[in-house]
């Protein structure tokens, strides 16, 4: 049953091609560099509690803004809006398998490497 629902011709791959990446991998390298710079900066400033607390409040603000913009671009995209249910079903099934896979491999690793503890 799922196969027929998921087989819907308006599948995702086609969308990805149409809305081809605006953020190139190169741009993400800058992001990763900033992440690393952030770690070192955070370490150096670790005793400036107020500054770090301020940073964490800005983190929340940045996340709120990003999710608002994500909503905006999703809401403006008719193709995505009309497929929302299908996208939700795909997300749910994918997640169940991803989570189950994680749990099983962790259990297997535990039996192999941790049992003697």
């Amino acid at each position: 049953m799922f196969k027929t629902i998921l087989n819907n011709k308006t599948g995702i791959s086609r969308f990805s091609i149409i809305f081809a990446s605006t953020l190139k991998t190169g741009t993400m390298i800058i992001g990763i560099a900033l992440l690393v710079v952030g770690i070192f900066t955070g370490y150096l400033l670790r005793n400036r509690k107020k500054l770090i607390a301020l940073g964490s409040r800005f983190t929340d603000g940045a996340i709120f803004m990003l999710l608002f913009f994500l909503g905006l671009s999703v809401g403006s995209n008719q193709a995505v809006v009309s497929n929302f249910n299908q996208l939700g079903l795909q997300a749910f099934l994918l997640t169940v398998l991803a989570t189950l896979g994680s749990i099983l491999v962790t259990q297997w690793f535990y039996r192999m490497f941790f049992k003697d503890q």
Partner: protein
Amino acid sequence: MKNTLIILVFFVAGLFAGLFSLFPESFTGEQMTIYVLYLLLFLVGLGVGANQHTLKLLRSVNLRIFLVPLSVVIGTFLGTLVYSFFDDGLTLRECWAVGSGFGYYSLSSVIIKEMAGESLGVIALLSNIIREILTLLLAPVLSRVFGRYAPISAGGATSMDTTLPMITRSVGTEYAAISVFSGLILTLLVPFIIPLIL
């Protein structure tokens, strides 16, 4: 959970703003998104670097502690590989990219949307929120059926913060350190692994 709700409110507000064209068409927030994303990545790093526990954890580390986040990555990839057989609408890379959010929905969904478009961005957002919710709801059951590491594994990147209280309640506080460690490694992996896959 409270933060998740606030974040959803912002997402839904944006959704309605887009649906009813409340902003001029020229304003998509596209350029802004990239700069805010940069800011977010820097701030995430700042939080990790300033966290007193990070260093303590890294000092106490033996190599085996890496096996937990490693098994989460392998398990997620295998699980999403199986899923991709059933869904012809998504390529294997797209399935892996969505899975590689490891529950860290805010960051992963934005990166994925920027790289692969709105549809996959929405799937990533929903999928990773679902992972967090599944972990919160099922932690006690998972612990009983699959062992003490199961809730940590299910939590993925969230096992360091949002799902940590529920995890320690289900498996005991002695697992808090490994839970934080696993979540930390997976959180840091998210911005690396998604661009590599897509």
